[in-house]
């Protein structure tokens, strides 16, 4: 297993309050690593630090063994795409405009827009099931449609590593499942913050954030124990078995 993205002793604080502290994480090539934790546990901030759009107060992020700080923003963006939560705009852009932005790190005055860029954008639109509405105005899209456009934009970046901050928020169940299936099927390494623990069970590995620290890391079965659900999430969790295929499903109750 090769490590593609890693951080050591990573920390970020605002006004003396630590939001992320002492996080060590190695993202292995090709895996889907889920990041779970209660609200305010530092998942979003950790993703922003790993994508390089925030500079850590302490520690270091390395991309393919090189310190992130030593790479240009463009080099990072060609390898790492980040889908933030609920990014919005008041500009009158279309779906296609928004997805075309994903090609930004690959274009310059000397590398103008090409038919290859066009093809990548079309493919990204198709991947998120938006190919039939490229000319729709952003302001007319539902929350779920916007999220799918953001994911298409990230796919258009052709990244090796995809960082997603709760991408299934606002999506109906059909699109939640299709986005997660899509993400799992992509030939990229994925770090995905999730709220739905049953969805998190599908990841290769899970990391649990609690008050800014990574308190557990391992396979879903190792990590999502009843003790962990009680201590970190404050709920009583029980595994039930689907009689049809033997899959384990979590059921939650208040303590």
């Amino acid at each position, binding site marked *: 297993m090769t490590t593609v993205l890693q951080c050591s002793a990573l920390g970020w604080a605002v006004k003396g309050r630590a939001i992320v502290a002492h996080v060590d994480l190695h993202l292995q090539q090709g895996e889907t690593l889920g990041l779970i934790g209660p609200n305010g546990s530092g998942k979003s901030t950790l993703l922003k630090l790993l994508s390089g759009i925030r500079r850590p107060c302490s520690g270091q992020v390395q991309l393919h063994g090189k310190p992130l700080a030593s790479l*240009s*923003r463009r080099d990072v963006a*060609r390898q790492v795409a980040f889908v933030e939560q609920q990014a919005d*705009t*008041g500009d009158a*852009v279309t779906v296609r405009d928004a997805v075309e932005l994903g090609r930004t790190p690959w274009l310059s005055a000397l590398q103008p827009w090409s038919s290859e860029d066009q093809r990548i954008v079309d493919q990204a639109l198709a991947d998120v099931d938006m190919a039939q509405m490229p000319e729709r105005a952003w302001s007319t899209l539902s929350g779920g449609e916007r999220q799918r456009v953001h994911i298409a934009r990230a796919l258009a970046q052709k990244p090796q590593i995809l960082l997603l901050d709760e991408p299934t928020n606002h999506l109906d169940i059909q699109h939640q499942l299709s986005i997660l299936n899509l993400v799992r099927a992509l030939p990229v390494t994925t770090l995905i913050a999730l709220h739905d623990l049953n969805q998190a069970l599908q990841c290769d590995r899970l990391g649990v954030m609690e008050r800014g620290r990574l308190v557990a890391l391992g396979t879903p079965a190792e990590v999502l124990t009843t003790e962990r659900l009680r201590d970190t999430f404050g709920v009583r969790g029980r595994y039930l078995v689907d009689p049809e295929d033997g899959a384990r499903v979590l059921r939650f109750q208040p303590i």
Partner: protein
Amino acid sequence: MMARGSRLVLITFACLLLLAAAVIAGVALGETPIPPSVVFQVLANKLFGAGFVLDPIDEGIVWNYRLTRALVAASCGAGLAVSGVVLQALLRNPLADPYLLGISAGASTGAVSVALLGLGAGMLSLSMGAFIGAIAAFSLVALLARAAGGGALKGTGQIILAGIAGSQLFNAMTSFLITKSASAEQARGIMFWLLGNLSGANWHDVALAVPVSLAGVLLVSWHTRALDAFTFGVESAASLGVPVRRVQAALIACTALVTAVMVSIVGSIGFVGLVIPHAARLLVGVRHGRLVPVAALTGAVFLIAADVLSRTVIKGQVLPIGVVTALIGAPAFAVILVRGRWVR
């Protein structure tokens, strides 16, 4: 894709052609209309030594009076409009305007200090004073925004608030100076200058305004993809590979410099930097590759037209051009606001 590249070339070419037509019209129109054929002959004489025999008065009006006005107006309109596009994109605020950064307020204070207090002991011209005032005010605003955390990725709101505070401060200083030391005649002259005035435009002004405006437009054109990347905010731009701080610093400094030069030459001409970008968006959409050239052209043509109006609306009197731009710009802005294309 070929179609995009050639379309951009086509747009640019059409823009330049329209601009040339506007300059010619701006020179031809006035209280004494001059036929375009004479305008062309004067240009041929002056530029290529063609040797047409012309009325020297006409020749003087065209070459030394109206052409300089039209060129300064065009540079100023293009510079302000593109500055508006940049600030609206970077600050993610549709109400951003080049004067928001305290520049016009600072320029006023600088000009008034020179005119009334004799600052610089006659060594400084009014426009030099305005330029120094503009840069001083912008520096203050930028420092204040930085101290308030505007340097951070999120705090684009800080520079707007800092700009408002800075503008208020410098406007108050200007009013204080005028009230304290100006005679009624001086006050009227200063008011006229503050509202924008092209009547003094000479070839020295052209030699300053045209290169500055051109350089500004070119620098911004180089960054159109980066400006597009700000569509979904600053963090999104960063994740798309834009070196956010460097682009913000370079482009905001560029708009400040361009605006300061323009204000120092012609005074503060309102609404161009605010309204023209929105009008241009209605014409060609929000993608900056098209928006920047079209906004530059629209701004240039608009200001030439406003200058013609300011010279012809009242017989025998020249209105401050800022009055004309505001009289057209404010209702135009209201229409855009109601149509609401740029807000949801």
